[in-house]
């Protein structure tokens, strides 16, 4: 099965919750980071966005959530639509109220606050939240967080990631954007965290856009995937299609096909194929 080259994303299917159409992001008015990026997230699905360091994955998420301004970046072309509504210019806090929540890279935990305070802030956008019951619900998902009464900064990396995900749950979002949840975690914890992501999706029906470098794990939980290089989508398809793709196996999953020598896997080769 041959994966298709990136879809244009203009045709919006009814079950598309988020569509990013041909956006361009420029930093400091000169540095072009995203060059015409298209992607769609289907409602109720997990979509993985894969790519190497510096491909522009985190920038994509910040463009969607409008957090670029504080880093001197801006979307100069294209549009972003959430549930059929243009959100390209909307403020980050309005977006959270609409149900899009970003779990930032490095978890974005408020280290000098307690676990409970972090969770309470997750529900900041919903003033009428029933905090006590909802926090209990998060603790049902993450029993080990309940025992941690100290400051969040003293939690282990895995616990901090769980807290970040629990905090996202408190916002009761429809769509969670996750930036490298596996960063800095041991393989066992990575497995646990991805299990949780899958549960969020299956049990709570939250659509997820998962940005990852760990392509193997990400494609195992995802329904669909995009592969990104140099600010562009170079390949997309269902997770299964991507896992079966020879190039993806070779560059992202390791192994695959017959063993080749290092000189065959030069970078120009994949450029030639994909760009």
């Amino acid at each position, binding site marked *: 099965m041959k994966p298709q080259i990136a879809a244009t994303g203009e045709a919006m299917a009814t079950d598309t919750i988020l569509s990013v159409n041909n956006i361009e992001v420029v930093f400091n008015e000169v540095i072009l980071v995203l060059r015409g990026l298209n992607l769609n997230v289907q409602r109720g699905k997990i979509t993985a966005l894969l790519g190497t360091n510096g491909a522009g994955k985190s920038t994509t998420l910040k463009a969607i959530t409008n957090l670029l301004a504080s880093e001197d970046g801006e979307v100069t072309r294209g549009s972003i639509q959430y549930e059929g509504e243009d959100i390209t210019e909307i403020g980050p806090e309005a977006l959270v*109220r609409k149900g899009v929540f*970003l779990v930032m890279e490095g978890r974005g935990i408020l280290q000098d*606050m307690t676990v409970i305070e972090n969770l309470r802030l997750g529900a*900041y956008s919903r003033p009428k939240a029933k905090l006590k019951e909802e926090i209990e619900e998060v603790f049902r998902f993450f029993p080990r967080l309940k025992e941690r009464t100290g400051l969040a900064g003293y939690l282990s990396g895995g616990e901090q990631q769980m807290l970040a995900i629990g905090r996202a749950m408190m916002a009761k979002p429809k769509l969670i954007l996750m930036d490298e949840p596996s960063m800095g975690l041991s393989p066992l914890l990575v497995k646990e965290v991805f299990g949780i992501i899958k549960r969020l999706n299956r049990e709570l029906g939250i659509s997820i856009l998962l940005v990852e470098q760990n392509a193997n794990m990400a494609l195992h939980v995802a329904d669909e995937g995009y592969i990104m290089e140099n600010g562009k989508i170079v390949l997309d398809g269902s997770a299964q299609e991507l896992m079966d793709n020879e190039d993806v196996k070779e560059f992202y999953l390791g192994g695959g096909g017959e063993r080749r020598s290092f000189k065959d896997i030069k970078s120009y080769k994949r450029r030639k194929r994909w760009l």
Partner: protein
Amino acid sequence: MKWELFFQLLINGLIVGMLYGVVAMCFVLIYKSTQVVNFAQGEFLVLGAWVCLALVTNMQLPFFLAFIFTLIFMVAFGIIVQTVILRPLIGEPIISVIMVTIGLSIFMQALMNWIFGNDAKRFPDVFGTTDVINIAGLNVEVAYLLSLVLSVVIMAVFFWFFRFTRHGLAMRATAFDQQIAQSLGISVKQTFAMAWAISAMVSGVAGIVIGIVNSVSNSLAFVGIKVFPAVILGGLDSIVGAVVGGIIVGVLENLAEFADGQYLHLGNLYTIAPFYVLIIILMIKPYGLFGTKDIERI
């Protein structure tokens, strides 16, 4: 050694120190959440005192009503200062922001001099504040006791606000990391305005209290200067540190007064003693008693 005088001055120091602590808290609140060093904090306090006094004496309002109106006025004032003067400066070098707050301080001094005059005026005796009660052999003015109670109440409210309320937590989140706060749905602009509003309001309360204890005049802005050693002693970004620093400065002043009056006879040690101690403490603990270490990056 006159122990009676010693204890009297110690009590005075504690009470005045608590007030310094309250103003220092306001200063730290602005610094911590918006990274602005507000040199006009003392003028905020004077403004609150003048407005309340004008409402009581010129408009003949009952004190309680005047107090409430002053609070509302100070909240509006804080929001206007933040949105009109400081919001356009976000992202500008720290020195520009400092120059603007110094400018604001001078501007407010001149304006208040013009509107309210240069003379000290007394509040009408609202609570029988000049009465003196005797506690364990020491004479304490009722006004001082009232100010002590009010300081403690303000501190308790601050504690409750930052620990348990949604907006208090949002302010702490913004102080910790603005991008994280935004990603949680917190409006940074709104939080900044709120920090200035609360700071101006509480400074106003402190101004009214000091105005009742002493009298209202433009020279009350000296509290804004006293707050610097208090805040730096406590470590610039710590609210607890501000309170402790305030109390230390208040007590030190009065102990210096005692030592000076009894033994040294140098004169005016009262005003400068806190600054000497400040220098010594900063030599030992450069980040203040409670400050976080990465503060120098700001």
